[in-house]
């Protein structure tokens, strides 16, 4: 720089002054102060408050998120518990239902068995009765036939009393035969 000054001086040009020039001093202080007040009021102030607001908002959001998370976890736990309870309840209901169904099944089967037995017994009885009736009929017709045959053979008619005693005797014989 000093070389420059020397050169400039030698060449007869303007010298580079390291002494402040008043024409640069007052505009720089004026410009600075004006800029300072304008920026503080219209730029730095709003920016600063926005930064603070943002920090507060973020902090609040984080806190809220944390709260929500805790709440969500609590609710999840609650739901899990409720679910487990419901599951237990459902299991019980199903178990009970099964028991009821099983007992009903047993009952129905027993009833069916009983009914079947009753039907079979009734059928038996009916058969027995019919058999008896058939046997009775047979006995009557055998008696009649026997009387007729006997009448023909003997050729004479017996009295009614004789008939009866004779038939009874005969039937008894036939019955004893049948019982065997």
């Amino acid at each position, binding site marked *: *720089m000093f070389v*420059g000054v020397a*050169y*400039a001086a030698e*060449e*007869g*040009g*303007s*010298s*580079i*002054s*390291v*002494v*402040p*020039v*008043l*024409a*640069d*001093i*007052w*505009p*720089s*202080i004026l*410009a*600075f102060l*004006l*800029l*300072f007040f*304008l*920026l*503080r009021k*219209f*730029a*730095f*102030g*709003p*920016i*600063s408050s*926005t*930064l603070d*607001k*943002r920090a507060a*908002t973020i902090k609040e959001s984080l806190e809220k998120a944390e709260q929500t998370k805790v709440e969500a976890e609590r609710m999840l736990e609650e739901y899990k518990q409720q679910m487990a309870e419901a599951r237990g309840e459902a299991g019980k209901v199903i178990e009970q239902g099964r028991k009821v169904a099983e007992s009903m099944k047993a009952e129905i089967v027993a009833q069916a068995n009983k009914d079947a037995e009753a039907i079979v017994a009734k059928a038996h009885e009916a058969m027995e009765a019919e058999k008896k009736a058939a046997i009775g009929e047979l006995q009557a017709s055998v008696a009649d036939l026997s009387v007729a045959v006997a009448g023909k053979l003997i050729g004479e008619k017996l009295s009614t009393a004789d008939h009866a005693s004779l038939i009874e005797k005969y039937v008894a014989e036939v019955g004893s035969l049948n019982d065997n």
Partner: protein
Amino acid sequence: MDGFAEKLASKLHHYSVLPFSDVNGTVDAVDPFVLTNYTFFLIIAFVITLAFFLVAARRVSIVPQGIGQVAEAGYEFIRNLCVDNMGKDGAKYAPFIGTLFFFILFNNVIGLVPGALPGTGSIGVTATWALMVFIVYNAIGFKKNGVIGYLKSFVPSGVREMGPGGRFTLGPFIFVLELVGHFLRPLTLAVRLYANMFAGGIILGIFGIFMILGAQQLGALGITMTGFGFMMLVIMYGFKVFVAFIQAYVFAILTSVYIGGALHASEH
């Protein structure tokens, strides 16, 4: 190397403080109320800085967006710098440090435009701001600690607690030393910024001249000179960009350190 001296002289002339209306003239004494070439670009920097922040501040919202983000990031950077160097109350001084930083930065950046000058390339500008910083931080020191308290802080507590022998011999000596140190602060602030910005232009000018002179030469020498000049021009331009930011930062951080020291003077 004919013409080097003349070209350098003309370059130096270009970087002199001159009336803006007559930058080619040979004016030795600049009238106090004339618009100088440096003041002209200072005003341009003023307008750009103001416009940038006024526009950006409108875009500043809770949800970061666009240019607002840039202004925000810049301001937050300065605010953190203040808090780091001054403690919790530092944010209060962020508008002052911010104005210094951004105004200097915009001035320096304008100086990167070919043909333009950085407002901070004039000692008149930097010395004014440095003196202002000196007044501001000392005023804060006196206000915070009281006149006696602040002056007492110039002598370290270790010396103040010595016996009378040490206190009255070493004490005044250190006090004077500190006082000189304080008065050197605005001087170094002013010269550091000015010299960096001024020299940046001169260095670019020199390599520019080198290139032009090389182009006028014939043969390998000319090509070598031009190539070397161009290479250095590119490197130095990159360096100048770096310096533009660094010097704004240095001015801002030193100011915040000085204010921080004044705020906490009684603690030392």
